[in-house]
């Protein structure tokens, strides 16, 4: 939303703040007037009405300023809260692709740095600007009231000021955009150095990291300098004009007092008001950068809030059996230089419910994408996918996912309790049985027993206190806790030893007999008896069938099988 819309949303607060601004400004404007009157009337006694008025004004100003601080503070934080909540709502509804493709650090920057900049508009910019403008207008009115001719001379500097400011702010806007982008790069840099910390130490690559960081840091310094240079000009301009104003007043005003056309008291008041006239101009110079920067950030935030989300068109929410069919499915990405990258080409197969299926094939992207397609996380470029003979597009994806358990290739754990990592819930609930079943099946019971706080033990960020195999088993438990109809395992047993592997696969068969299992795997031995094996190579299916069939018909399959251990030696 634009700044105008932002203000409209908070119109009551804004009006209240303006009202307070009026009051506190009005109050402070009265003070010189009263002092002037006191000097002119020669009213020297301490208990005169003038003094009483001054005391009342002082006290009221105090109260008003306190309230004003609270309201401006509240307003800016509320705006930040609401903007952030809007961002949160938007992000959590976004597609997996959007998040994947957003530049590292971009969202982090938007939530922190850009929000701070918008807040600054309100605290430093908006409210201060408003009081400054009010003070300016008030001071001008009082000046005109005190001595018309002198006032007009004094006010003549304003148009010059406007021109100068306009020029400076115009040229600096671009620099703020650059600042935000630089912050994004810094975030990305820091993130990489943290996630890669073990490797960096093994390779003694600290100097490389420092080198990379130096680039973005130098850039930050350069942009910062440019902004400093731009705004450094503001000060001399303001001071120059302010001093010109003062000199005008003293010369012309002084002459008028000498001629007798102005009283000394009025002259004193005029001097005070001119100080009040000058202060807001300084403020404009001080505050201008904040507003300029905040508007740039607001635009960035709006881009995220306004981003398109493909609406969910599907409505079917029922249970599923687990039949999966792919008809001529292709997945084509656009690479950075604009060319096409075909990840999957013309894939067709049928998986029957409640059967065990495996997908084998060489190392390359493509197999995992099959799983993302099956669960509706991404959409195919060509072709159609059916579940239970119904097109995937007819399903309400959020409902469908409740029946699919997907275990990713790499371990993804959260810095919450074990329970939350498995079941996403922190309170004990009616599904306790399912939770236990999942833990048992994944052979985690022993591990959970040994944890200091049982299931409530916290898993450290990125799961660094667990071994590779333990993380994988935790991910499996997570998938099973859903009580899935379809279980998708992406290279699950890669990190798990043979014993545990056969135990787990046995458990799955026993505890989840109705499940449709699809397993991407490198090892043929454990899947030999599966109902169907699909061989995928460079994005294309080169064979489907049982183990025996493929041994006969597929050269590549034979090659894979023969490169692995023969059964006899293992059994001995």
């Amino acid at each position: 939303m634009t700044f105008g819309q932002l203000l409209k949303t908070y119109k009551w607060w804004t009006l209240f703040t303006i009202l307070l601004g009026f009051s506190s400004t009005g109050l402070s404007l009265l003070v010189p007037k009263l002092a002037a009157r006191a000097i002119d009337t020669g009213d020297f006694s301490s208990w005169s009405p003038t003094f009483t008025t001054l005391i009342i004004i002082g006290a009221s100003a105090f109260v008003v300023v306190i309230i004003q601080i609270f309201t401006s503070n509240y307003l800016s934080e509320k705006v930040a809260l609401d903007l952030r909540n809007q961002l949160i709502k938007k992000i959590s509804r976004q597609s997996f692709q959007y998040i994947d493709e957003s530049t590292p650090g971009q969202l982090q920057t938007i939530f922190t740095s850009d929000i701070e900049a918008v807040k600054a508009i309100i605290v430093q910019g908006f409210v201060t600007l408003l009081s400054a403008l009010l003070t300016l207008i008030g001071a001008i009115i009082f000046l005109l009231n005190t001595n018309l001719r002198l006032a007009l001379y004094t006010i003549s500097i304003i148009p010059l000021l406007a021109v100068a400011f306009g020029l400076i702010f115009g040229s600096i806007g671009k620099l703020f955009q650059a600042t935000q982008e630089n912050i994004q790069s810094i975030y990305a840099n820091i993130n990489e150095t943290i996630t890669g910390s073990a490797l960096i130490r093994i390779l003694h690559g600290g100097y490389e990291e420092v080198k990379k960081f130096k680039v973005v840091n130098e850039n930050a310094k350069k942009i910062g300098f440019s902004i400093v240079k731009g705004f450094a000009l503001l000060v001399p301009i303001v001071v120059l004009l302010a001093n010109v104003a003062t000199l005008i007043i003293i010369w012309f005003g002084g002459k008028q007092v000498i001629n007798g056309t102005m009283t000394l008291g009025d002259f004193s008041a005029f001097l005070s008001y001119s100080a009040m006239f000058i202060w807001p101009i300084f403020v404009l110079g001080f505050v201008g950068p904040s507003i300029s920067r905040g508007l740039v950030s607001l635009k960035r935030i709006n881009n995220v809030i306004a981003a398109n989300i493909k609406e969910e068109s599907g409505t079917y929410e029922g249970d599923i059996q687990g039949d999966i069919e792919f008809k001529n499915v292709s997945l084509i990405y656009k690479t950075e230089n604009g060319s096409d990258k075909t990840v999957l080409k013309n894939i067709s197969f049928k998986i029957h419910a409640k059967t065990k299926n495996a997908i084998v094939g060489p190392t390359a992207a493509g197999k995992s994408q099959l799983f993302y397609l099956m669960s509706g996380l991404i959409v195919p470029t060509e072709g159609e996918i059916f579940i239970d003979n119904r097109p995937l597009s007819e399903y309400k994806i959020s409902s469908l996912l409740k029946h699919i358990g997907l275990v990713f290739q790499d371990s993804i754990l959260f810095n919450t309790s074990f329970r939350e990592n498995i079941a996403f819930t922190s309170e004990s609930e009616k599904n306790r049985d399912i939770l236990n079943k999942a833990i048992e099946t994944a052979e985690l019971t022993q591990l959970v027993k040994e944890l200091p706080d049982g299931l409530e033990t916290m898993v450290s960020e990125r799961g660094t206190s667990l071994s590779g195999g333990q993380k994988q088993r935790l991910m499996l438990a997570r998938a099973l806790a859903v009580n899935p109809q379809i279980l998708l395992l992406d290279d699950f047993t890669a990190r798990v030893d043979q014993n545990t592997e056969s135990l787990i696969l046995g458990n799955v068969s026993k505890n989840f007999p109705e499940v449709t299992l699809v397993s991407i795997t490198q090892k043929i031995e454990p899947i030999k008896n599966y109902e169907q094996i699909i061989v995928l190579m460079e994005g294309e299916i080169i064979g489907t069938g049982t183990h025996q069939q493929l041994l006969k018909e597929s050269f590549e399959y034979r090659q894979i099988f023969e490169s692995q251990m023969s059964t006899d030696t293992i059994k001995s």
Partner: protein
Amino acid sequence: MTKIYSLDKKESNVITPLGVKASTGDFFSYLKEDKSKLIFAFIFIFMNSTANTVSPFLVSKAIDRYISVGNVDGLLNIILILAGVATITIATGYAQSMLIGRISQRTLYRLKEGLFAKLQSLPTAFFNQNKAGDLMSRINNDTDKINQFLSQWIGQFIGVMFSLFGVVCFSLYLNWKLSLVMMSMVIFIYIITLLFSPKIRKENKKNLEANSDFSAALQENLTNFRVVAAYSKRDYLENHLEKKNNATFKSALRSGFANRIFEPSYEFFGAIALILVLSYGFHLISIGGATVGVLIAFVAYTQRFYDPMKTLATAFGAIQLASAAWVRLQEVLSLENNLKTENQKGDESGKPKLRLELKNVSFSYDDKNMVIENANLSFEPGKTYALVGPTGGGKSTLASIMAHLYDPTLGVVYLNGKDITIYSQEETSKEISVILQDPILFTGTVAENILYANTDFTNVSIDDLNRVLEHKGFKDVIKRFENGLSTTIKQNGAGLSIGQKQLISFMRAILREPKLLILDEATANIDTVTEAILNKTLEALPPETTKIIIAHRLNTIKDADEIMFVNGRHVTPAGSYEQAIRMITDAKRNS
């Protein structure tokens, strides 16, 4: 080794009443480099403030000497002087802004550089004990608070101090009695400042923490978004983040209010002071102790004394905030790496003929549960060893100790006959390389990743690199990437499968020709055909290379010279391959 690197457990330093002294000591070392600039800036600020303060004094003279007696010529003179003073104000103001701006940008640069360098000096344990989002927040946001203070407030703050000094001097000179009355309110200001500062600083600290907390939660969920999407847990994510957001809101309200609480109070005292000045001033005029001109000047001086006080009040809030931020930075900067390297007292009595030897090595992450107990292992040059065992048994931990990512809790690790702690990290990195279970890649090209931190291959062209790698047997591997070595990689290899990432790790490690290569489940995610290709490349390593292979797959280890069995803290040699198989199939996994 308990969680000594965890930033969570840190307690901040004892806070003195003004809240500033305790932690500013170290901060000034960051400014030292710009000492000369700072001095010039101070000079300009001083000149600027003096010029600012002289004006009312001159105005007062103008009124008394010339305006009230009708001396136009004298008025003209004083106007010229005022114009001169104004020029000085302008010139010094500009110079001051430029200098302060430069100084604050450079200081910010050094702060960030220092923090980042500190991160590089800390061991793996530090990163395991802290959250990515929290560190990001400290390096990016907390430093910015300090920058804001420097760039916006230092000039103002110092200028105000000088102005105040100037006002005090001139006003004392003009009429010392009236001057004392004017300044009398300062006592009260000082008292309330003293009273409230600690609380303000605490609120600021809490606010910075809440923000850090939010960043951490956001970062984690963005990184793990796949799971959030696949498990349809978007509501969970939304609620989780909204809760953190509300926490930042609440703490921001409190700290924001706290930071500005002085303004109205200072203003109030200013008003009282004006009243006092006026009443006492009138009294003096009535007894002939002061002129009207003097009173008028004092009205201006009072304003010029207490308005800056208001600025000080606001600046003070910024000081508290910057100070709280600085404490958080210090929490990181004050950490020292506990990992022993370049240890002069290291034992050199190991067997030099052995590549690596573990003597009575025990290890625990938390000083409570031993993960490895009393391991005694020898690894000879040129041999291939296999470490097998059930998941969770301690194999990767052992690998971390062998690569000196952690010091053993008990016992010694000898590298080429010397305690491994004697070597520097650089020396160790040249001798030992590890292919990790979870491959790590950096943004850049495949080539850049392969050459990362490789000091033997600087400035090599893509073609040359291709040739070298093909020579080592990686031709078919390179083909797996759409643009070969020039393929660009996004953040940690998004879009590549683990297997593909692992291929790059292989090339990277083998190019270094380490004397000891540890493979931690390196081929777990790679198909067996490709694995065979990679094994061949291992054979291309120099014959004296020692290889330690951690694996589950039997055919991965079948060519090992010696097999060791790791399970639940104990390492047992398994002798022959057949024996190993028996141990594996019989073994009960411990967790």
